[in-house]
């Protein structure tokens, strides 16, 4: 037995030491969020780290105090519906991109790349006028419409890169067996594409869930606020801020999405990378 550390252990200690400043900086806001959310209201403004007790009931009082339920419902509605609309138009487009050669294909690819890069913020005044003209100001459906349209570039890009990995032979075999293109699509292609569609849908959902500028501009009253706007409205331009409620709301609004994202992250990277090389 030797007391010398093995090479791997030595590498482990050095790696963690080198990473520790970044890791502390990353975890710091999470610690702040959770500790503040659990402080008794009287201790929130006292700058000590450890509360005298963990007040779990903050999460319950937060629900009514921050109008959380309404905002949660709005966020679910907006994220779900905009994702569904984006998928309905993106799946056929991505299918065409991965299965056919056609003259406008290169143009469409470039169009997708460029529109994926454009942020809504530079168009926000024009979008605002469009929404006013449609009579949809302060209506969550305006946000649904804008999110769906802006998600298309991303969803087509992700889907076509996955669709291209599904061999065409299977559909062709079904055609030879006498299946119509529709039958082949529904019984052969779609079941194989389902995992890719699910992953893409989840990312589009998370994007919509987290979006800020468009919602801030189009939604004008508490009844239509989505979660980011609702939480923002609790801290913007107020003299007294109930920080324990704000942090509890931010925590609940963030955690489920963060877990799903952390879990599925590698598919995002793979999809974007596939799209870039195919």
């Amino acid at each position, binding site marked *: 037995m030797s007391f010398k550390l093995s090479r791997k252990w030595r590498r*482990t200690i050095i*790696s*963690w030491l*080198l*990473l520790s400043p*970044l890791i502390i900086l*990353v*975890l*710091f806001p999470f610690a*702040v*969020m959770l500790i503040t959310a659990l402080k008794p209201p009287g201790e929130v403004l*006292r700058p000590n780290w450890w509360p005298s007790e963990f007040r779990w009931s903050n999460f319950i009082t937060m629900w009514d105090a921050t109008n959380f339920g309404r905002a949660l419902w709005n966020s679910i509605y907006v994220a779900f519906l905009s994702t569904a609309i984006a998928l309905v*138009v*993106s799946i*056929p*487009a991505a*299918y065409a*991109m991965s299965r056919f050669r056609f003259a*406008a*294909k290169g143009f469409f690819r*470039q169009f997708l*790349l*460029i*529109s994926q*890069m*454009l942020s809504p913020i*530079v*168009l*926000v*005044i*024009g*979008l*605002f*006028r*469009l929404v006013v003209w449609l009579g949809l100001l302060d209506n969550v459906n305006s946000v649904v419409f*804008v999110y*769906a*349209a802006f998600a*298309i570039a991303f969803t*087509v890009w992700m889907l076509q890169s996955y669709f291209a990995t599904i061999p065409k032979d299977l559909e062709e075999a079904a*055609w030879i067996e006498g299946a119509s293109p529709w039958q082949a699509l529904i019984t052969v292609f779609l079941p194989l594409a389902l995992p890719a569609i699910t992953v893409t849908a989840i990312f589009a959902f998370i994007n919509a869930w*987290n979006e*800020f500028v468009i919602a801030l*501009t189009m939604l004008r009253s508490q009844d239509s606020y989505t979660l*980011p706007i609702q*939480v*923002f409205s609790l*801290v*913007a331009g107020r003299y007294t801020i109930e*920080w324990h409620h*704000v*942090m509890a709301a*931010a925590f609940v*609004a*963030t955690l489920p*999405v*963060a877990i799903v994202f*952390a879990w599925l*992250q590698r598919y995002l990277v793979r999809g974007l990378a596939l799209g870039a*090389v195919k």
Partner: protein
Amino acid sequence: MNRSVLTNPYVLIAPGFFLAAFIILWPLYELGTIAMSDVNRFGQIRGYAGFDNFLSVFRDPEFLGALARTGVWTLGIVFGAILIGLPVAMILNEDFYGRSVARVIVMLPWAISLTMTAIVWRWALNGESGLLNSGLRTIGVIDTNVQWLAQAATAFPMQIMIGILVTIPFTITIFLGGLSSIPDDLYEAAKLEGANGWQIFREITLPLLKPFINIAVVMNTIYVFNSFPIIWATTQGGPANSTDILVTYLYKLGFRFGRLGDASALSIMMFALLLVFTIIYVRLAMRGDDK
């Protein structure tokens, strides 16, 4: 095979294409019209104004301040994220105990909405009750509270720091992809030749990572240039517009000051600039395609 809409690619891409094109082209047309018009604060057009709105943007000292800060903001975050991201990616590419846990932690900021991150930092940076001050006092770095967000001299560097922190995950993801594409035998050959760690980094890792670094620079430039929530949710560009960058200044022009003509002219200019960045990106990405 019988004819079906499924065999016509143009029918298949049409709905997606028209919806995506509509949401860009209609607002762009509106912006172009207002930018060239004399317009009141309610958006009513009173006449043709030529390039007056564009000139009026350039005459505004606030615009020049925001423009300069956008440069600092973008360069600071893009290069900060690369300088930190590259060594971190190289560490995460090595095999050590707990690596997958370390990866998840480093990637966490990507999973959180920027709005929520910024709101939490706003509270952590609070002068009297913020946990950053009390943490720094405990370990003895400062002895009086710093009012982090009350003046631009401390607020803006903090905002850049938050920006770097949330940009690192995406940057590392690109670098990890690049590092895994470098064949191991190259490193082994270099070691046999007697190269040291620094030489290996200079002669092998860095040159082979260059295309990935390019992509990270261009994509991060686009994202950071457009990034709105960090500054808006911490200081709203204040105090006295001293932390405004172009996107927050644009938002104030349009929705606070009611200077719609100026705001539209600025939007058009920013749109043109973004288009240039994007064309650079498309060139880089397509060059990878030809191989």
